């Protein structure tokens, strides 16, 4: 699954640590999601969407 997390984070000038703080996860988790190595759970995806004020589909894209 691809996502726009890195771009959205950069637009707000946040570090991975800032985003991890806001989501209540480790920096390693934010890094793994950004690189597409780890797909977040639905509750975490909703948390990300709420934080950026977007829908989940606007952040995460399924790759067929």
């Amino acid at each position, binding site marked *: 699954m691809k996502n726009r997390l890195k771009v959205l984070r950069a637009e707000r000038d946040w570090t991975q640590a800032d985003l991890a703080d806001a989501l209540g996860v480790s920096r*390693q988790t934010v890094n793994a999601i950004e690189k597409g190595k780890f797909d977040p759970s639905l509750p975490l995806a909703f948390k990300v969407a709420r934080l950026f004020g977007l829908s989940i589909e606007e952040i995460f894209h399924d790759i067929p």
Partner: protein
Amino acid sequence: MNAKKTTDNCHTLAQTKKNTLRLFFWSVVWALATAGVAFGPKNLWNFNKWLTITAVLIHIGLGLGMIRVFKQFLLGLDELQRKIHLDAMALSLGIGLVFGGSYEMLEDIKLIPFQPEIPHLLTVMYLTYAVGAILGIRKYQ
């Protein structure tokens, strides 16, 4: 980023550290209790039945306590960290099952001259868990 969220995450990290230390403490205590059950009857109380039963019950009680603390440790992790540890546990269980089954037969089929011991299996499982956790951490870096 607001200060409250940063404080919350600092609290979470502090809680994870605390849970890790608690788990370490319980693991050491359980290992000491294991040594007590293994060597106590022969070396300390000359196979006194009631002292041995007491030592075994304490050992089981501490083991159950360690399981509870480990569960709290897992619940305190975030979802990626939890996945890494659960994957490592699955690997450890699988290797333990396969290795244990084969290892148990080695003496019966005369491939090794000594009796297979449970501590050998536990050591393999501990090492597999540690290797699995390290590989998982590296995989998601």
